[in-house]
């Protein structure tokens, strides 16, 4: 999950060529963020290749630097965020539309769409159901959507700003508060980043304990997503069946880790989960029953013609576009990309031999995104089953064992995909904490695939991604 990370300083004039060379060498984009440093903020680019993590860095002289968004389209939102929050101007990123900022001037964030009969439909920030707040501006002709402008960040609490200056050990609490359904993935990415700054490595018990928590989080989230998808097509028996299974999974969380959302189970430097044989055995039995019934319900769905008819062929994210956008998680796997932060046995966790899940038909549509979750519920059931059969002997510790990194980078697979947390320290305190969640990575793709769909399909397409607002807005 982490390597020996040093910062590679790049002269401002060489930024684009250095990034181009890193891509040529097989580097894949993880995130880009700005670090305030007086008049000249610093821009960091985190990339990953077969060997490990690379952090390229350049000074934005007088707050200006070259955009790399044409080389790495996945960095679009990252540059827009650095622009809005840290006032970095990216030469060549035109037009620079507002993302985190909410300017009163609508031209600052809306894409002009003109033509006969084109009109706008404004939805949100308050939605009709129990849904997080965010605004969608549809440009439509009749029912057909031509373009969607997303305006999120209504829930912006400036958590990254809050983290700056805190004691290193408090970073995890801030990362956890960013989002309840991704609490384990986000706080573990943060804990891993801080541990790599401190040169700590998790022992066997901690690796196993943390893997149990990550998979418990995935289980209830995936069940929730399938319930939401059933609601999206108006199939209440399916929605209620998966909602009931989700409830059982959250009760399992409470029994195993003391909290329905697994809050406060991730700490820097050690574990919290202690499982005796009897509890682990009982939890294993309930887990197996949940996974079996979820499989049964999924098979029922596959025979429901009226449900299937709504899922296939809509909201298609093709493989090229998914790669271009840097899509992650079940979304990427449903588009046929073999990616999963759990694959390749990441060092701090316990995933021996895990392969990214393969849906039956990776067509990139709503059906494929539903199907990949059904496959992953089984996969998670198998991993958890094995871990609960031989539970960790104690909470576990992270022990000194490697060189201290200059930038801590933690990477986890949340229920929605790869989540990256970068932490930089000064004098034992957090100088900069940056959390780039899977939802942040995938939102641009939602807007892409909606173009061409009809308005009534939007809620369903949106639910097939089931992205968070909280850990995007932070």
């Amino acid at each position, binding site marked *: 999950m982490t390597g020996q990370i040093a910062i590679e300083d790049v002269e401002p004039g060489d930024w684009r060529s250095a990034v181009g060379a890193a891509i040529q060498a097989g580097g894949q984009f993880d995130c880009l963020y700005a670090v305030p440093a007086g008049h000249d903020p610093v821009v960091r680019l985190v990339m990953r290749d077969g060997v490990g993590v690379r952090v390229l860095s350049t000074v934005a002289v007088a707050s200006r630097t070259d955009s790399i968004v044409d080389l790495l389209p996945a960095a679009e939102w990252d540059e827009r965020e650095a622009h809005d929050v840290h006032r970095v101007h990216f030469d060549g990123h035109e037009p620079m539309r507002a993302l985190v900022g909410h300017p009163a001037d609508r031209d600052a964030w809306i894409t002009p769409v003109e033509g006969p009969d084109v009109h706008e439909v404004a939805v949100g920030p308050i939605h009709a159901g129990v849904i997080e*707040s965010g605004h969608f501006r549809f440009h439509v002709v009749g029912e057909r959507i031509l373009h969607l402008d997303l305006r999120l960040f209504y829930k912006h609490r400036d958590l990254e700003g809050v983290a700056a200056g805190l004691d290193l050990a408090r970073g995890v609490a801030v990362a956890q508060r960013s989002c*309840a359904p991704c609490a384990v993935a986000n706080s573990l990415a943060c804990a891993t980043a801080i541990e790599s700054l401190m040169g700590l490595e998790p022992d066997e018990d901690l690796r196993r304990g943390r893997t149990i928590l990550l998979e418990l989080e995935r289980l209830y989230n995936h069940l929730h997503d399938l319930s939401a998808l059933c609601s999206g097509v108006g199939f209440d028996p399916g929605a209620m069946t998966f909602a009931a299974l989700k409830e059982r999974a959250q009760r399992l969380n409470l029994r195993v880790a003391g909290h329905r959302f697994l809050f406060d189970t991730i700490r820097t430097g050690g574990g919290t989960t202690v499982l005796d044989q009897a509890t682990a055995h009982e939890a294993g039995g309930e887990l197996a029953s949940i996974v079996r019934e979820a499989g049964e319900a999924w098979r029922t769905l596959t025979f429901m013609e009226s449900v299937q008819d709504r899922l296939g062929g809509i909201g298609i994210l093709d493989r090229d576009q998914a790669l271009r956008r840097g899509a992650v998680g079940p979304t990427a796997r449903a588009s046929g990309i073999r990616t999963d932060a759990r694959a390749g046995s990441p060092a701090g966790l316990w995933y021996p031999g895990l392969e990214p899940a393969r849906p039956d038909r990776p067509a990139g549509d709503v059906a494929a995104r539903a199907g990949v979750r059904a496959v992953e519920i089984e996969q998670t059931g198998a991993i958890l089953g094995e871990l609960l059969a031989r539970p960790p002997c104690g909470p576990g510790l992270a022990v000194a064992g490697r060189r201290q990194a200059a930038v801590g980078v933690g990477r986890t697979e949340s229920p929605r995909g790869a989540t990256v947390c970068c932490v930089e320290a000064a004098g034992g305190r957090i100088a900069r904490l940056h959390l780039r969640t899977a939802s942040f990575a995938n939102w641009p793709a939602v807007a892409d695939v909606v173009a061409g769909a009809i308005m009534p399909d939007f809620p369903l397409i949106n639910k097939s991604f089931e992205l968070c607002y909280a850990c995007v807005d932070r």
Partner: protein
Amino acid sequence: MYVMYKRLQQLRRGIALPAPGVPGSLALRHVDCGSCNGCEHELANAAAPHYDFGRYGLSMVASPRHADVLLITGTVTRRMAGPLLAAYEAMPEPRLVAALGNCALGVDVIANPDELAGPAEDLLPVDIRIPGCPPSPSEIVEALLDAMPLLRRPIRKDEA
């Protein structure tokens, strides 16, 4: 389909939810004002089979115009203050305001104060307080049922 219904029936029998007490109803309009999405999950869970709040006359409605209760989750960010007040203005009288979860109550908030307009109490009169991080579905249902008498009034003779 048959198996799905059978399982749901078994589940319902197994849970054996208590029968509704005094008849009544509350229409709920939820507004997320900067939560971590935990309170939303528990609120949605309260409508699922293990709690089934619809059984006690509670329902989520799509518009504040149809609502008796405004359910506020989250810290109330600066950016959500306007939409929140607009939703409140749109509600018919009599109406109630519920602060759902610790953030809405201003407890243990993690946020940059410059980004906040809340807690809820600073903006609106709060009638119902539901603490927890997040409160469990049963705590949410119980708090809302306890609030039902707040909107109940005796039926006048001439309206019968």
